[in-house]
């Protein structure tokens, strides 16, 4: 699963073992690409159990985040993530905006100017905790948390066993994708979909699906 995006150049000729400013920017740009490619799918998922704007919301948010990164040149990955969080909060326009936005800001704050895989593990954990705290969701409530929590656990496990950034991110992406798929049989307990009660059963949660894209993007841009 090599990266074919415009920022692949950043990785050419060497293994990416650190989340430096360049790689962090590449991550966000790759997120934007994946969201763009999956916008219709996210919209369709949200139309089924929500209000059908998750694709457009995410597209608006990540486009603003990329535009802001192009204007400024944040000097470390922490600042890249912080700027991304700020734009997501400000421009997304749905529940996913403050959730992902707060998540990226807290991750950026945790990361600061550190770059190694252990710091990234802590940053992702901070992202998860802040999203849980803001939204009040725990696992199995059919939200972002159902993809992010297993992703963070897989990242920590892989990196804890000596895996590098790409190995950890890849394991996390797979776990996020499995977590998103596993939301299908769940009944939504948080967010708009929870108003549907049992009618929310049988469909993938759009927020969990976009979380899987976000983590997949990190695996993509750290591929050798």
């Amino acid at each position: 699963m090599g990266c074919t995006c415009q920022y692949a150049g950043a990785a050419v000729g060497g293994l990416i073992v650190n989340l430096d400013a360049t790689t962090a920017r590449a991550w966000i740009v790759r997120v934007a690409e994946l969201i763009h490619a999956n916008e219709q799918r996210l919209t369709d998922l949200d139309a089924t159990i929500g209000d059908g704007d998750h694709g457009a919301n995410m597209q608006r948010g990540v486009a603003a985040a990329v535009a802001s990164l192009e204007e400024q040149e944040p000097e470390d990955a922490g600042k890249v993530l912080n700027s991304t969080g700020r734009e997501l909060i400000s421009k997304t326009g749905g529940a996913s905006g403050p959730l992902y936005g707060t998540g990226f800001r807290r991750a950026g704050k945790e990361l600061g100017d550190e770059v190694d895989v252990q710091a990234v593990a802590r940053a992702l954990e901070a992202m998860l905790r802040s999203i849980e705290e803001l939204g009040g969701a725990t696992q199995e409530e059919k939200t972002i948390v159902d993809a992010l929590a297993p992703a963070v656990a897989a990242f920590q496990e892989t990196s804890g066993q000596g895996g590098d950034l790409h190995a950890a991110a890849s394991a996390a992406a797979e776990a996020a994708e499995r977590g998103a798929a596993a939301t299908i049989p769940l009944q939504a307990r948080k967010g708009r979909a929870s108003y549907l009660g049992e009618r929310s059963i049988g469909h993938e949660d759009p927020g969990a699906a976009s979380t899987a894209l976000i983590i997949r993007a990190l695996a993509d841009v750290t591929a050798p």
Partner: protein
Amino acid sequence: MSVGIVLVSHSPALASATVEMARTLAGPGVSIAPAGGTADGEVGTSIDVIRNAIADADAGRGVVVLMDMGSSVLTAKTLLEDLEDGEPQLRLADAPFVEGTVAAAVLASTGAELESVARSAEEAWSMRKL
């Protein structure tokens, strides 16, 4: 001037209609502002729209914020964190939107303080109609 009140809804029409209703009931002395929809007037929530409404409603005595649901709540909470140590003094009220707004606006019109106005909104959960 009264304690400020801001109504956050993802629907611009709902925020405005509820502000209007509260003004009718509480009189013109209440400082209450709508924060509905996104910056371009679409359905959704915008932290900047909320921030501006708070600035409009604030008269130095703090602002009570009521939210309809979902993204309104999450965005208001996010804003509260941003302002944690700053001005103006914000108090998010966990309240039924219309009933809490009416209770808060009427109490605010009597000159009550931030915390009592917020609490009167929250007590509206125990109101019954029939």
